[in-house]
């Protein structure tokens, strides 16, 4: 995605066209079910940004450049020729960058104990923002996350919206929960080998994770402190099978689904006081699972089989006012699962089977309208980035089920590299400095 790489841009445009065409085919078919398929792709509206070369700081510059690229808010501009600047603060050649189509030029320079970042507004030929960011040594466990935080702030200077580079994802591979940075670095296993862990989720403060420990067909929900590694069982989840945990936005409540011979129902446990599980659904041999809180904590979207195949419903956080959320045609629409409420509260993302292959959909919570975002292969288990603009999901488009990230504004998709098959991803909120723990 560089200006000099017109070819790459053309390829991406072509890819986007393919996707649009594939979706357009779906449109007729899906419209019969009252579903609207839209893939927005508006090339050319993103401002160009060039990261200026300079001495030292190569790894910082590479990380920041990639972070800004992954915001999908800029056309990244590369300088075709080697640097003409020696990196010392001096006149920036705005004319050259303007001719390359850059609206912004980012200058990074070494500063005592950190990095000076200076964002130039190329069209106005002036510095827009600058700041010295303290950085730990690059051997420090918190180094990369601190660089990501700087990237997020630079994105805010340019666009008014803070980036999501200083985030991490949890996922499951081979029965273990792993953690990985949003750019695919710093992979760490969080649960021991030889167990079957499922459905990891972050606590809102990024300090804990909850997951299901599956053993002999039963399973409890465990909450693990990422700082200390200490793991505690969630009260009320030690009998039967307890799956799909989810923290409330204030972190005080954990909702989960409990399975026994009467079916599967959603409960919420007060984990702040380690007491009191409350039953929220009464399935009577039906399944109710996969709870996800609205950002204000007042509502819960969830999956229910009350009308046959699993579909997406919504209720008040105390279990009252249960109703259908994502419209479907009985007998025609495929199974719908894995809902996650968007950080801005406007949408719930989930996957729905189309010709027995799961695809990613969004339902607008207010209008109850649907949008389909994928159409080829299996695409499932979406999870929102804190910007409400990107989601990670599992796709088999590489031949193996692996993690991918989609930008819903541009339709751009990138792979999040993980070892082997990966599933059940969960994206963190923006991580505070206290969330930096060294790898176990």
């Amino acid at each position, binding site marked *: 995605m560089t200006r000099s790489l017109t070819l790459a841009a053309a390829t991406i445009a072509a890819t986007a066209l393919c996707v649009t065409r594939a979706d357009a085919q779906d449109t007729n078919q899906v419209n019969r079910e009252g579903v609207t398929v839209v893939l927005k792709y508006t090339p050319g509206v993103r401002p160009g940004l060039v990261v200026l070369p300079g001495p030292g700081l190569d790894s910082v510059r590479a990380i920041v450049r990639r972070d800004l690229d992954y915001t999908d808010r800029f056309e990244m501009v590369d300088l075709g020729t080697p640097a003409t600047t020696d990196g010392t603060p001096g006149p920036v050649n705005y004319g050259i960058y303007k001719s390359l189509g850059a609206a912004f030029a980012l200058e990074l320079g070494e500063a005592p104990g950190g990095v000076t970042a200076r964002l130039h507004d190329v069209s106005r030929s002036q510095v827009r923002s600058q700041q010295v960011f303290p950085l730990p040594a690059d051997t420090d466990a918190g180094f990369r996350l601190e660089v990501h935080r700087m990237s997020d702030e630079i994105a805010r200077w340019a666009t008014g919206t803070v980036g999501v580079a200083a985030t991490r994802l949890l996922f499951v591979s081979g029965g273990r929960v792993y953690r990985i940075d949003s750019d695919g670095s710093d992979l760490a296993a969080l649960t021991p080998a030889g167990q079957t862990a*499922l459905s990891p989720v972050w606590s809102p403060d990024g300090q804990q994770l909850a997951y299901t420990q599956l053993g002999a067909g039963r399973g409890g929900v465990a909450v693990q402190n990422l700082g200390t590694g200490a793991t505690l069982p969630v009260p009320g989840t030690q009998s039967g099978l307890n799956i*799909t945990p989810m923290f409330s936005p204030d972190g005080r409540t954990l909702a989960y689904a409990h399975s026994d*011979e009467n*079916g599967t129902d959603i409960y919420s446990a007060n984990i702040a006081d380690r007491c009191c599980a409350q039953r929220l659904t009464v399935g009577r041999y039906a399944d109710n699972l996969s709870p996800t809180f609205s950002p204000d904590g007042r509502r819960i979207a969830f999956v229910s*089989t009350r009308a046959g195949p*699993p579909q997406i419903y919504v209720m008040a956080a105390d279990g009252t006012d249960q109703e259908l959320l994502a419209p479907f045609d009985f007998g025609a629409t495929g199974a719908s699962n894995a809902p996650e409420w968007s950080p801005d509260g406007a949408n719930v993302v989930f996957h729905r089977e189309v010709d027995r292959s799961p695809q990613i959909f969004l339902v607008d919570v207010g209008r109850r309208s649907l949008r389909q975002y994928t159409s080829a292969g299996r695409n499932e288990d979406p999870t929102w980035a804190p910007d409400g603009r990107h989601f990670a999901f599992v796709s088999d488009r590489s031949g193996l089920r692996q993690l991918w990230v989609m930008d819903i504004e541009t339709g751009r998709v990138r792979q999040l590299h993980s070892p082997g098959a990966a599933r059940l991803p969960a994206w963190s909120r923006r991580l505070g400095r206290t969330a930096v723990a060294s790898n176990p």
Partner: protein
Amino acid sequence: MRASSLLMLLATAVVAAGCGGKKPPEEPAPQPAPAPVPAPTPPPDASADSARIARERAEREAADRIKALNADLMAMINFDYDQALVRSADEATLDRKAAVLQANPNVRLTISGHADERGSDEYNLALGNRRAGAAKRYLMNKGIDGGRMDVVSYGEERPLNPGHDEAAYAQNRRDEFQVTAGGENLVAPQ
């Protein structure tokens, strides 16, 4: 892996045993060992020997009968895609279990539900649970005390057949039945 191939063997045995109703206890009887014994045996010990032979034969028959009854208890049932209803084709399998359970009140079962890999990973755990519960309720309707049957689910985590085609999926959508107590001295139903 070893456990599941053992289960497959057992399942095969059950299918074989299942066709002929009460055959298994009788079939082994005609073929065994008496032939080599009589020739060298002097008269005095004849009665003791024949008693021993009869005893051994009875033991063998009992062991075979218990094996067949265990196989009846462990026979799997299968399900349609995203369904947890007991298929009519599997009712006879469950009816045999009910009869053996009636005749052997000390037997306890753990019923585990499984799903194929196509559905959602997490939903499949709930679906497997519902499949195990369906078999339990069927047996309860036949008069078996629910307290003798535990229900668990593995979702899609333990496929019987590692393939990715319809045949494999059909095999993997199943209930398994594990005898957790009382399987040693099974009595045949009346």
